[in-house]
């Protein structure tokens, strides 16, 4: 090795070491983030929108988070309590969290268990309209034996106790700041709602609702060398395509969130070489829900799409198992995924697609399209093609109203599925409804997905966190939406099976993870084998970051910004 070469090698080694040596808080300057849906408030309890939850996650933190693998990781606590380490009581009715000592709020005051208890009180105060109150629904009481110990007692056994104060949707707010903002007074505390004091890596410097947030590194953050960025500019507004462009093509921004755009457009932007697209999968499934009750417009409002206990009002076509199965067989999920999502989606045959331990493999046959099989099934069931090719049985035409929300991917899915169904002799009328109406819970509107005044409908649903218990419980008989409950209830398919309800009840009593996984799979399989809901695509969250940004561990289980303190600039 010549002398020059040695010098070069040495200097290369030094330059590799340099970033580590320079690692001090704020050394990497400014981070520019773009969320094309602008953030309305920094208080996730008052909004519930994903954008608000994620923006707030830079400032206020929960006790524990989910990492990119869906594993629970401690944040403000020393360890995750379990039955074996004594943190969870053997009867599963209480959990005791040990808070990390020495954690302070960004204003310098101590973070204690009192703040956590206050957060519970804040979110459950009457008339507050707290959007995350379901996280605290099972909490009987919270107490602090000492400032660093938080004991949560549940109303009954809680096999999965990591709900209250875990994950970005239920972070802890400061008691001192929000003390006078309980209940109906919550909206009046604009200053606190726009600039909550937190324990997180950043503090709000300037908040402009529905526009932009300027944040600065928290001087009291518990890790002295973090965050690496001195400030964050968090811009909102516009549309997904131009947000992607600002990272991938012009390089004006470092991180862009939720880039639901045509896959080929995204791929083309990525070839500009300024950034990379990241996809993270969690629990979102694009699916077709089948209406098992009769949605005929001839029925009155008390009977239309209403499930009647004795089965008198069942769907004239879709109550036939063969029809439901044929509809599923005719769909080519690979093609749908390729057209609508490419690498941001995977074809799926399960309504419960994750975490891995809950994923069933019993239904994977649905991945292959089988037009012939579907035709044979309908033939055997007595559905005979009429003169126009549409099958008829007992004077009932196989004709369906297929509705979804307005969205270009969903409309192309509708067109493809309509064509496949036509091939097996099923006629479908397509309809799309503005998302704000379709997903809006207005009981007066005939067009909501809960009312389901159609035969089949398509949308995406998911569950937060990693525990599927509440999600799978949606298909209980008691959760069927009816006029009596103002159409609330999440059993959109009007599916009712006592054996399924028994599985739900069993899961609520079962603590062992393996057993819970077995039950969740059994429930998933029951739904799949009955073809009451037809899963299509397992959807991932899609974001993009600049190539100069390092440390991004994108997750769809929690806030995408969960580890923003570790993000750094590569030089």
């Amino acid at each position, binding site marked *: 090795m010549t002398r020059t070469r040695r010098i070069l090698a040495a200097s290369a080694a030094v330059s590799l070491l340099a970033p580590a040596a320079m690692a001090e808080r704020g050394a990497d300057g400014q981070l520019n983030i773009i969320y094309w849906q*602008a953030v*309305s*408030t920094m*208080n996730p309890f*008052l909004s*519930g*929108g*994903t954008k608000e939850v994620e923006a707030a996650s830079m400032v206020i933190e929960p006790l524990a988070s989910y990492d990119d693998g869906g594993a629970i990781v401690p944040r403000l606590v020393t360890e995750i309590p379990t039955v074996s380490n004594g943190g969870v009581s053997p009867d599963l009715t209480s959990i005791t969290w040990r808070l990390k000592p020495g954690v302070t709020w960004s204003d310098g005051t101590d973070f204690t268990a009192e703040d956590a208890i206050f957060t519970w009180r804040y979110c459950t105060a009457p*008339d*507050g*309209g707290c*959007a*995350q*109150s*379901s996280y605290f629904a099972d909490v009987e009481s919270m107490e602090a034996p000492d400032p660093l110990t938080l004991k949560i007692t549940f109303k009954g056994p809680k096999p999965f106790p990591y709900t209250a104060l875990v994950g970005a949707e239920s972070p802890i707010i400061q008691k001192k700041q929000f003390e006078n903002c309980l209940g*109906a007074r*919550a*909206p009046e505390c*604009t200053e606190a*709602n*726009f600039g909550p004091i937190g324990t997180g890596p950043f503090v709000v410097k*300037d908040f*402009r*609702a*529905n*526009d*932009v947030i*300027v944040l600065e590194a928290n001087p009291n953050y518990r890790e002295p060398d973090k965050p690496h960025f001195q400030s964050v*500019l968090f*811009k909102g*507004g*516009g*549309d997904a395509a*131009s947000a992607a*462009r*600002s990272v991938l093509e*012009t390089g*004006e*921004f470092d991180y862009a969130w939720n880039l639901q755009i045509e896959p080929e457009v995204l791929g083309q932007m990525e070839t500009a070489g300024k950034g990379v697209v990241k996809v993270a999968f969690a629990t979102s499934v694009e699916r077709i829900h089948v209406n098992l009750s009769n949605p005929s417009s001839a029925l009155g409002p008390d009977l239309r799409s209403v499930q009647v206990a004795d089965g008198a009002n069942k769907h004239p076509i879709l109550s036939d198992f063969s029809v439901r199965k044929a509809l599923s067989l005719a769909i080519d999920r690979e093609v749908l995924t390729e057209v609508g999502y490419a690498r941001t989606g995977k074809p799926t045959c399960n309504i419960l697609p994750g975490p891995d331990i809950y994923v069933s493999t019993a239904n994977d046959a649905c991945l292959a399209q089988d037009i012939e099989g579907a035709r044979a099934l309908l033939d055997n069931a007595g559905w005979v093609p009429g003169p126009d090719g549409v099958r008829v049985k007992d004077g009932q035409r196989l004709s369906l109203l297929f509705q979804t929300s307005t969205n270009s991917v969903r409309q192309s899915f509708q067109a493809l599925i309509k064509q496949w169904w036509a091939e097996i002799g099923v006629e479908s009328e397509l309809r799309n409804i503005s*998302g*704000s*109406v*379709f*997903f*809006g*819970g*207005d009981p*007066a*509107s005939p*067009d909501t997905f*809960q009312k389901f005044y159609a035969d089949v409908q398509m*949308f995406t*649903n*998911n*569950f*937060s966190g990693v525990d599927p218990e509440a999600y799978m419980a949606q298909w209980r008989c008691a959760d069927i939406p009816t006029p009596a409950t*103002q159409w*609330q*209830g*999440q059993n959109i398919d009007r599916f009712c099976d006592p054996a399924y309800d028994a599985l739900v009840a069993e899961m609520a009593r079962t603590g062992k993870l393996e057993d819970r996984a077995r039950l969740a799979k059994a429930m998933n399989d029951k739904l799949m084998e009955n073809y009451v809901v037809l899963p299509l695509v397992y959807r991932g969250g899609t974001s993009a970051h600049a190539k100069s940004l390092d440390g991004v561990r994108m997750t769809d289980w929690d806030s995408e910004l969960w580890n923003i303190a570790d993000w750094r600039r590569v030089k």
Partner: protein
Amino acid sequence: MLRFALRRLLVSIPTLLVISFIIFALLDLAPSDPTANLPLTIPPEVREKIRLSLGLGEPFLVRYALWLQQFMINEPLNILEQWTGWTIGDSENRLRVLSWATRSPVVDLIVARLPQTLWVVGMSYVIAVLIAVPIGVISAYRQYSLFDQIGTFVSMLGFSVPTFFTGLLFIMLFSVWLGWLPSIYDTTHVVRDWDSFVFQVRQMLMPTMVLALANASQISRFMRASMLDNLNQDYVRTARAKGMRERTVVLVHVLRNSLIPVVTVIALGVPTIFGGAIITEQIFRVNGIGQLLIVGIESADIPLVQTLTFIFAVLIVLFNLIADLLYGMLDPRIRYD
């Protein structure tokens, strides 16, 4: 003139009340739900509680009366208090119009948005007028010349090509390919010195030009038509016969008379400045009043949409009156008393 103005102002009060009621009723009857955009993971019973906490449990007329009181009485009182520093009544517990999405006073949101809207949309309007008037004058004076043909072509283009197309074209050209101008407007930017001023100009350039093109085409056509009307009038021949210089004939006599209808058109267009440019603001993320309105509509933030549309209504009524008064001042033949 004063009596006319006062009479018109008094008449506009019931007009505005009717308008506010119609807007409120329309928004209320339209199917919308402030919780519609929340993730589906939030259960229906929680959504119902959110709706109740927003006051949606009250009957329609009660909510309308409450909005009227908040907007017509509480907000002006609040502004008065801020200006004078007085305390009038129980100002602690006086409810202001609160936005549902942000849970903060709507008027504060609007005030925060005004600067960027006035800068970008207002500046584009000023530029449009400055470009349009000379183009209109020359086009008319040299009718069917090459200049007129080009002017007609460009204004037809500006008329017919929508701003969402020109905006994207500009971004592709100047931001993506050439990399000269930022495609995203930074509303937090503060002009301190020469460099920051240059940056402000650069980030304003594209949205301003897109809007100016659209506005200028319209105004220049009005200007041209009005000039053509006047150029053939008898008084123009008289002026020329008197031996006046052509310059004086065109710029003093014809231009002044031709401006009368154009000034009204310009005045009637001023409320649209405050209304913001919904599409252009969205494309360049200027995030002014127009974007605020769109966000409000998308998230079914009724108090925000109601207040904004009502303010637009007030501005339109006001500038109609101003246009009428200007007309009377510019044209001595028109007298209102």
